[in-house]
């Protein structure tokens, strides 16, 4: 659906600043209907990356394919038309103050040459969809941040795109509005079968809505995959970012062996504790950890201090691993 192949974007040197490699050989693919996230610290090239998808920025090299069309091979005019099937939502909404909420939603329809009557009814329909049917005549200045972003989402959906790009769509919003906007994005994805690529610096946003994610740092992909996979993959930077492993220091200096365990719905902590306490006869203390809901499933990272049953521990760890549980032994602060 969205496919980037070895995409690079180099901004030429300007003034005293040398050239900047914003995106450095990124390949990624997002399936139809998938809700994908791109996370990374500021300056990691996220915003440039999302602009490469609809060619608001032309890649220096590499190819961009959306909906089976290789955008990087199209002429300027063809790219312009292709952009109609790619909606985009921005951090600062970018609504026109000279238009009402309905007028803003009608804007892309106007650009596409849709007639007045049809524009009207489509705008009404879309504002209803985003829960702002009663604010059609409001100016952006009269709307809250969350409401503005809802109007912007309605606008992005006006020409029935198959792809929706979100550039830090919730970064300018408070917590309650963020939750509302994320829920709306998830809902329109489900109802309209959209493919969504969301850029954010907040892991909480990824955890709340994404099926898969790409971790970007200094223009390069550090890690990527479906959330359910990276969380149970050993030493996945993305998994660690989503669900930070408890620090080993929390259990240092008390004797016993330290185990870092990832628990999931399929391999719950009861299974782990049964093996360690029931089978091995050891005493287990929870030295640290957290359990959260990610991508609709329950995931946890626990730091366990196991005392007693030392001779059988290696065996028990091996059995857990065979059973699909991610277990790491922590020695002197280092996980192994």
């Amino acid at each position, binding site marked *: 659906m969205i496919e980037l192949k070895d995409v690079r974007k180099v901004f030429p040197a300007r003034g005293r600043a040398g050239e900047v490699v914003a995106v450095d050989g990124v390949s990624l693919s997002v399936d139809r209907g998938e809700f994908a996230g791109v996370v990374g610290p500021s300056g990691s090239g996220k915003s440039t990356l999302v602009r490469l998808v*609809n060619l*608001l920025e032309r890649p220096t090299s590499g190819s961009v394919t959306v909906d089976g069309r290789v955008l990087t091979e199209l002429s300027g005019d063809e790219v*312009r*038309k*292709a*952009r*109609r099937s*790619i*909606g*985009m939502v*921005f951090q*600062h909404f*970018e609504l*026109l*103050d*000279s*238009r009402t909420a309905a007028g803003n939603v009608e*804007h*892309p329809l*106007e*650009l*596409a040459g849709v007639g007045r009557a049809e524009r009207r009814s489509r705008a009404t329909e879309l504002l209803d969809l985003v829960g702002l049917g009663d604010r059609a005549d409001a*100016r*952006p*200045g009269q709307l809250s941040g969350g409401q503005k972003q809802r109007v912007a989402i309605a*606008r992005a959906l006006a*020409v029935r795109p198959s792809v929706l*790009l979100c550039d830090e769509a919730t970064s300018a919003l408070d917590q309650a509005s963020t939750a509302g906007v994320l829920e709306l994005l998830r809902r329109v994805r489900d109802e309209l079968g959209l493919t969504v690529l969301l850029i954010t610096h907040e892991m909480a946003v990824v955890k709340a809505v994404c099926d898969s994610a790409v971790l970007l740092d200094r223009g390069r992909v550090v890690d990527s995959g479906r959330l359910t996979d990276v969380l149970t993959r050993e030493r996945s930077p993305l998994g660690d970012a989503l669900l930070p492993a408890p620090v080993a220091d929390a259990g240092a200096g008390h004797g016993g062996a330290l185990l870092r365990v990832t628990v999931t719905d399929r391999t719950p902590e009861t299974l782990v504790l049964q093996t360690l306490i029931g089978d091995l006869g050891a005493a287990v203390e929870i030295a640290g950890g957290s359990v959260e809901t990610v991508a609709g499933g329950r995931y946890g990272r626990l730091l366990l201090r196991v005392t007693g049953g030392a001779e059988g521990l290696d065996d028990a760890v091996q059995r857990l691993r065979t059973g699909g549980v991610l277990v790491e032994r922590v020695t002197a602060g280092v996980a192994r």
Partner: protein
Amino acid sequence: MSDWNRIYPQLLDATWETLYMVGVSAVVTVLLGVPLGVLLTVTSPGGLAPRPMLNRALGLVVNLGRALPFIILLVLVAPVTRGIVGTTIGSTAAIVPLTIGAVPFLARLVETSLREVAGGKVEAALSMGARRRDVVRTVLLPESLPSLVAGVTVTVVALISYSAMAGAVGGGGLGDFAIRFGYQQFRTDITLATVVLLLVVVQALQWAGDRWARSLAHA
């Protein structure tokens, strides 16, 4: 003061001449100055259609127009005036230098107004598949309209001030009236009366312009 009855009709004529010169040149200035301002904006580096050479050339012409003292411009463009109007004398002839003087002025104001439209709004329109001319038509101009109206108001007020010099080419108007009937005949009362009249016209214009701009601003 007994001669006011004699002077009054001439004051009225002078007022109409000023309104005629300023009115026509204001309309032509808007018709030429706004597109020139748009061109200056979109051809600038980082603009919608960067054309560095064209931009520099336009910038030079505009700066030349603004740097020239109006009284010099008045004389310099006489051949152009003759070409367009057929004469270099009279109110209609004065419209040509007035317009040439005001177009660069307004163009710079328009450029400043358009630059203040957030780049993100332009980017949003481009992401919807807008052509460059769509961006100008549906984003840049409507979003900067309150500021454009304020710029036009300032330009019209400047035109009134310029038009006072039109007497030099026999253009008539209130400035010319104040010189001939007031200053040259040592009639301070007439000079003052004319100044008050000009002040009233400028105030009324500014008030109307401000109201209009405010009614357009929604942000």
